[in-house]
């Protein structure tokens, strides 16, 4: 059964079929409090002639709020066991793929390698909750990472508020959970089986993480699965909804785009680089103070161009397979193909040449240790 979209999320009032005009785009760019209407205009074909103007707006807004800096983080794949049937994912349960998880000493080695590369923020990833890699395993890995890293995020399965609270207590500072697509029909079609088929449970999970006291929650859609304008407006509405309720947590947005990968899944709504850029510029205009992320899925030239043009946080030197950092060259297939294979120093020198400082440490574990409200 196709799940029902909650009213606070529904983007249809802004996708009424009326085509935006250049005047709508101009109004959106000059608007004091831009919202879904303005985002729809900035994402419309009418905005194409404004791309340069939008890029300049995006850069100015990014510079004002984040300065001439790019925050740096690295993903670490802990396990690729999965019981879900996501049609687009290289780790879906029907893919022929060697499955494994990092044992704790192995995880420790990978963490040490990332630390050696200079990172202070790590994002730990797993697939669906399984007996091989369930909550307790993740909790142990978070504790391990929190001993070395100032900021520790997870990107895993949806959890209960209590579980999120336990992770926060163990040193987890962020939860990333993409809805993949907000279009309920497409969601139902693409998530063929497994717990992830529960659209509403996944939709509610970021709010649970915030309720549990998580510092930041990362939202995103996998571009290519549905009408990207539909998903973009939902993403904005989701962020705005959470911001109203959980005002002590931060939101970040990511823009993963479906690229060729081990599943050989062809995007049903392909998004090209120009559209992705337009989306990032438009989102920056409507959300001037939200960190926007871009991963190594994108090729170097595109990443270089987007750094600071809306984008304020990036990964580099990433491996997307389990145990990938221990391999001299990527040996096994990852969840997605890394298009930007440059090393961390190469990436940082590119940033510096463009007048941007890579910031590895932008958090301190001292804040985490103080959790609980005691003044002593």
């Amino acid at each position, binding site marked *: 059964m196709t799940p029902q979209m909650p009213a606070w999320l529904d983007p249809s009032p802004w996708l009424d079929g009326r085509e935006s005009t250049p005047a709508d785009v101009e109004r959106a760019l000059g608007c004091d409090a831009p919202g879904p209407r303005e985002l729809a205009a900035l994402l419309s074909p009418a905005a194409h002639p404004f791309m340069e103007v939008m890029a300049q707006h995006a850069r100015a807004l990014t510079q*004002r709020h984040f300065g001439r*800096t790019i925050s740096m983080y690295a993903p670490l794949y802990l396990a690729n066991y999965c019981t879900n049937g996501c049609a687009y994912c290289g780790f879906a349960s029907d893919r022929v793929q060697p499955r494994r998880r990092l044992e704790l000493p192995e995880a420790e080695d990978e963490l040490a390698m990332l630390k050696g590369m200079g990172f202070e923020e790590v994002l730990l990833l797993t697939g669906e909750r399984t007996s091989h890699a369930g909550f307790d395993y993740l909790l142990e890995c978070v504790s391990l990472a929190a001993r070395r890293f100032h900021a520790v995020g997870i990107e895993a399965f949806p959890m209960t508020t209590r579980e999120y609270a336990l992770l926060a207590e163990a040193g987890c500072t962020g939860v990333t959970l993409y809805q993949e697509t907000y279009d309920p029909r497409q969601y139902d079609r693409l998530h063929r089986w497994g717990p992830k088929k529960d659209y509403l449970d996944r939709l509610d999970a970021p709010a649970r993480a915030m309720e549990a006291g998580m510092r930041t929650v990362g939202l995103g859609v996998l571009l290519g699965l549905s009408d990207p304008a539909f998903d973009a407006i939902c993403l904005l509405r989701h962020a705005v909804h959470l911001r109203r309720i959980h005002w002590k947590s931060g939101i970040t947005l990511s823009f993963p785009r479906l690229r060729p990968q081990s599943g050989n899944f062809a995007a049903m709504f392909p998004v090209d680089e120009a559209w992705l850029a337009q989306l990032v510029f438009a989102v920056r205009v409507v959300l001037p*103070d939200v960190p926007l992320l871009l991963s190594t899925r994108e090729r170097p030239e595109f990443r270089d161009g987007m750094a600071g043009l809306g984008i304020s946080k990036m990964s580099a030197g990433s491996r997307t397979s389990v145990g990938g950092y221990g391999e001299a060259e990527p040996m096994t297939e990852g969840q997605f193909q890394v298009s930007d294979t440059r090393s961390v120093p190469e990436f940082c020198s590119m940033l510096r040449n463009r007048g941007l400082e890579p910031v590895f440490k932008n958090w*301190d574990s001292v804040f985490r240790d*103080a*959790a609980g409200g005691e003044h002593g």
Partner: protein
Amino acid sequence: MERQDKAQDAWVVGGHRFSSRLLMGTGKFQDAETMVRAVLASRAQIVTVALRRVGRIPREDDMLGPLGELKGITLMPNTSGARNASEAIRAARLGRELCGSPFVKVEIHPNPHHLMPDPIETFEAAKILAAEGFVVMPYMPADPVLAKRLEDVGCASLMPLGSAIGSGRGLATVEMLRLILRDARIPVIVDAGLRSPSEAAAALEMGCDAVLVNSAVAAAGDPVAMAAAFAQAVKAGRDAHRAGLMPQGGGTALATSPLTAFLSEEGQ
């Protein structure tokens, strides 16, 4: 409490004397070299550093290394990133350890998007840190009542915002700032929201003791030149305040039938 030294035009905060009335933030710069050159060009004597950007072991993006080598600079660690009083207090203690400075800019903004200071948590943290002997300089909403409350618990200065951090909206809180200035017995430093040197000059003209800028310099076309421009503007604003602005109004033409004409009739 002493707010300024008339002869030298120095100002005093927490028993420390400063002549520069421009304080600098150190985040948001494109590299450490530009940041250091901007700090030098600003002639700032107090420089604030976010503890979250400081490592226990020196590293390339660490703010402390390059600043530590500068002479005549007082480091003021800030607790940016703290969501509540207890986090800020811990950060302040760690900051004192790492920077060797009794100064602390208490900065508590639970909402990481608009970064507005939490008045309740700021008050709690300020009270405890002042009692522990810190030179407490709270970043605060431009609220005249909160200003007096913070003064009462032993803060060394008040740092009300001109407008939201990084917004560049200037002195949006000007009327509240006037009330704070009217009654303050400790230095008032406008912190956050300034975009142009003229706004800094305006803050000093109206009687603020100093201003703190970061984004306005770091995100300027030429940060080093902008830092120098702010230094000049702050000096001009301060000089104007000391010189005394001419009175406002009074220049309107006299009405042909003045309302007070009846007053002269008595004596005739």
